[in-house]
Every structure is written in structure tokens, then in C-alpha cells.
């Protein structure tokens, strides 16, 4: 029987590394960020620093546990990473949020929705534009006219 050397479980490595760093960072900045003068003061259950400290410890321990399992076999984990398109989608979403104070919420929604349609390779561009116009219009009517919740308006709409 051929035994394969267990390969590096990259997921555990990534998560473990991030967790250890984050856990240490949380504990390190605790005195500055939580107004507990020293770390010892944070250990008082009644102090404002206790739960953040607990969170930091949990994250740190989980990171160490992950790193201890660097050779563990992958259990139904996703090994197929094609992050190109999700990254573009995330950029579209972020751009939308950054642009909307300038152009106005609904003016920014149209290009955002249209670009996402393109990303999903939707073939009928005219329908995509129509939907990208009607949905923000519908949201506008529902929120600003009926429910009276005002959205940021910029130069356009």
C-alpha cells in the first residue's frame, strides 16, 4: 500500500497564522485601546478589558490548535480557488460604496448592478440595463417615498 506523505494543509496554515497574529495583536493593544491600565487589570471579571482579553485568548488558542494540525487531511474543504471573479465583484461593491456619496445612491446603483450582470455573463444587455434602472427606482420609491428613509444623495441622484 502506498502511503502518501500528508501534504501541508494550507487552510489550517493560513487560518492558524492569521489567528495567532490577530490574537497576539489584540492582547498587545489591549492596554491602549481599552483603558485598562495594565494587562493584570484586564483580568478582573468586572473590568471592561476582560471580554476583549478573552476574545484575544480564544483567537490565539484556536490559531495554535490550527497550526498543530498542519498535517491534518482536508475534510470537504474547498481546494478550487478561483478568486478572480469574486475579487472583481468585491471591487465593484467597494467602488459602489465609495462613489455613492459623490454621485448619489441610486445613480451609483445602476452601474454597479450592470457591471455585476456583466460579471455573471448575462447575455441580454438591454434587459440588464432595464433591470438596473427599475430596481433602484423601486427601492427609491419604497424607501424614500413610502417608508421615509432618506439615502445619501450626491450630484446626480
Amino acid at each position, binding site marked *: 500500500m502506498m502511503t502518501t506523505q500528508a501534504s501541508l494543509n494550507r487552510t489550517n496554515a493560513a487560518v492558524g497564522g492569521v489567528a495567532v497574529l490577530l490574537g497576539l495583536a489584540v492582547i498587545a493593544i489591549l492596554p491602549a485601546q481599552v483603558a485598562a491600565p495594565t494587562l493584570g487589570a484586564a483580568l478582573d471579571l468586572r473590568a471592561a478589558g476582560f471580554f476583549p482579553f478573552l476574545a484575544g485568548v480564544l483567537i490565539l488558542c484556536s490559531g495554535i*490548535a490550527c497550526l498543530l494540525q498542519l498535517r491534518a487531511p482536508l475534510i470537504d474543504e474547498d481546494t478550487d480557488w478561483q478568486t478572480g471573479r*469574486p475579487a472583481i465583484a468585491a471591487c465593484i461593491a467597494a467602488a459602489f460604496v465609495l462613489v455613492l456619496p459623490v454621485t448619489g445612491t441610486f445613480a451609483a446603483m445602476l452601474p454597479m448592478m450592470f457591471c455585476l450582470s456583466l460579471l455573471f455573463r448575462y447575455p441580454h444587455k438591454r434587459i440588464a440595463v432595464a433591470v438596473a434602472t427599475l430596481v433602484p427606482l423601486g427601492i427609491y420609491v419604497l424607501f424614500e417615498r413610502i417608508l421615509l428613509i432618506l439615502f445619501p444623495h450626491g450630484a446626480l441622484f
Partner: protein
Amino acid sequence: MIENLIAGFAFILNPGSIAAALSGIVCGIVVGALPGLSATMAVAVLAPFTFFMAPEIGIPFLLGVFKAAIWGGSISAVTINTPGTAAAAAMVMDGHALARKGQARRALEISLYSSVIGDLFSTILLIAAATSLAAVAVRFGPPEFVMLYLLALVTIASVSGRHAPKAVFSTGLGFLIACIGLDPMSGAQRFTFGNTDLIGGIGLIPLLIGLFALSEVFTEVEKMRPRLEFLKVGQDEPRATLADMRRVAPAVARSSGIGFFIGILPGIGAEIACWLSYGFAKRQSKNPEEFGHGSIEGVAAAESGANAACPGDLVPMMVFGIPGDTVTAVLLGAFMAQGLIPGPQLFEKHATLVYGFFAVLLISNLMLLGIGYLFIRYLRGITMIAPGLLYPSVVALCFAGSFAVNSSYFDLGLTVIGGVAGYLMRKLSIPIAPLVIAMLVAPGLENALRQSLLLSDGSLAIFVTRPIAAGLLSVITAGVLLVIWKHFRSTQPPKETPA
């Protein structure tokens, strides 16, 4: 009481009230189903409109919205893997898994029936025993709440999947996020880095919208699955059968009890009840391995637990005028704007009206059954919409809903971050449920812990000297020991059999 109830029915069975309840239910289902819009926001926004309506029109409308929105969240949870409301988060895993097996209709119908049963059970208890239950509920002090929150945390073990260290990481992240902001008891600013928006903390709903809905869009755009073909919508689509309902009956019964009990405690509501019910059902189930992969018991338990919490929420509100969460606070305001001051005097001064509302709760339950059934029949077609049109609309709605919660531009950024984080967590097999549960539980747990220690002057003995707290503590200890023992047994090597 029965005479009061009959008088209440007679009062409320008029076209105006029935129409109000009906439109409330329809609005509620729509709001609940749309990702980004939550039950809380809907009730909060619609309540001021009812100030100028007669109480027998305005209040039934709001009650209808409230109940129906909690169920409505499961529609999008099942069909597009994004919970419409926070209370539907527990059934996303199983509900959507069932949909991917071509059983969307079955999942939706089971969730509808379970929610109606759970709600009915709770409403009957509310009508029968509101006052005495409220008297019990107020005896729950901070030490008891600490135990309840710990119990909720323990259910994380049931939803961790097989990646225990990553579940702990997720929990820790949830705690950390919940700590950000202004600490109300000491006034300390925690992890705010001088940023005003962070002083308000990290909003749960905008983050949730990102973690579930936006990350789903990112995942779908990566995989580019063709027009959700596996979701067969047709004549031969499997439906919920009597056998199904018989199988989930024990889970529904237990979850309804848990949900109602959680609901009557001020401060905890449907969002936590759904997880407790789900976790408990998994522990008691004969097929626990199905949970997370399409278990109808999981769907039934989560849904009935969440819906049973709603009438429970009304108990402290109506009997003592104490709001348990934002929704009941808004309902309280709506009652007050009608001149009905909830509290001890409400039942005496406005008995007919109050029992009329009880009657409306019962009637709208049945209406939910009928309308929900129609919605299921005709709305499943959502899944047939091309991803290129569906998901951009979902994203637009999500951002709108996320902003509307607190009129906060900062929350939009949170949603994007939540989306990226949710996507990465799914790729790295870090379970999201522990983060959500931790975020829900941590603030309450921390406050209750500190209040308990203030009450006891720093002594931890308060948790064992108070009978209810001690009882809950033993339940938790037993549960934790059971979990550890089961884990230990399952990792033992099999016994050697003689050759």
C-alpha cells in the same frame, strides 16, 4: 378568560381589522423574504404610520408584519441561501441544502407548518397564562441570564462542523467584534481607534447581510453555476408529507417550548431562540449527521423555535410594559401612541381590546398558513431568474437594507467587509454560525456577568446560591460533559476483535 376571548373575537372580526392583519402578513412575508430588510426594521419603520389609525387596525397590522416577517426570512434562506432576517440564519444550512437536492418546496412547506404550529402553541400559552408567566420571567436576574447565555454558547458546539479549532476562532472573532464600541457600564471606549462610527459598535444586521447575502453572491460568481437548474420547479416536485411532519413532530414540540421560554425573558428573542432550538434538536435527534446537510428536523426546529419566540416576546411587553428588544420596544411605542399603556393596568382598562389582539394573533396564524402556502406555490420561481439579474438585484437590496437599519453610511462599508470575510470563511471552511451566535450572545453575557458580580460584591458564589441559576448551571455542565464524552468515545480506536 374564555368569555373575554369570545368578546375579543367578536370585537376583532370586522372587515377593517381582518384586512389590516391580512395586509400586515403580506407585507411581512415580502419584507422578510427580501434579503437586506429585516423584521425589526420593518416594524420600526411602519409603526409611526399606525399612530393615526384606529387601534384595531394599526396594531393587528403591526402584529401581522412581525409574525409573518420571521417566517418570510426562510423563503430566501431556502431558495438563495441568504437569510432574510437574523432569525432565519439557523435554517440556512439545512434549508438550502434541501433546495439543492430539488426539495425546495418540501423545505419551505415544512418551515411554514412548523412555524405555524410553534406560533400557535406560544399564542395559546400567551393567552392562557400571560400574567403568571410574566411574574416568573421577572424573577430571572443577571445570574440566571448568564447561565442562559452560556447555554446558547454551548450550542455552538452543535453547529461547528468538524473543524473545532476554526469554530473556536470564529467564536473568538464574534466576541471581539461584539466588544468594539462604547462600554455602557464603564464608559470605556474599546477598539474604537478614535473613529466616531466605531463608538457605536459593529451593527449586527449590516454585518450579517454581508456575511450571508453578499458572500453568497461572491461564491456564486466564482462558481458560475448555470441557472440553478438543480432546483426543479415542476409538478413532480416533492412536497411535505404527513410522514415528514410526524418525523419532525418531537423537534417541533421541543423547539416551540424552548422558543416560547426564550421569548418571555426580556432581552432575548427569536434570533437566539432559533439557534438554541436547532442545537437542542440536533442533540436529541436520531439522525444528527444529517444536520447541516438537509435535515428536515433542523429546518423544523429552527423555524418553530424562532416563531414561538414572538408571542413570548409579547408577554413581558404587555404585562409589564417592558420591552425585550427593539421590535417589542417599537410595538410598545405603537401601543402607547394609541393610548394603550402596556402594563398591569392594560388588562383591566382595555380588556376587550387586548383579547381582541389575542384573537388577531390566532387568526393571523391561520392566515399565515394560507398566504404562506400561496407564496410558496408561486414564489419558488425566484430561483428560475437568471443569476445575472437576480444577484445584482440582491446586492442592491442588501445595500439599501443595510443602510436603512441605522441611516449609517459606515454600515455599507461593514456590509462589504462582511461579504469579503464571509466569502473567505467559506473557502477556508471556517464556520460562520459560531461568529453569529457569539456576536448575539457576547454583549448580553458580558453585561449580565458584570451585573451579577456587582450584585454579589465580586463573589462567584452567586451562581450557585440562587436556585434557578444553580439549576441552569448543572444543566450546562451536564451538557458539556456529554459533548466531551461523545467526542472522546468517537475518537477511540475500535476494539480489536479476536481473529
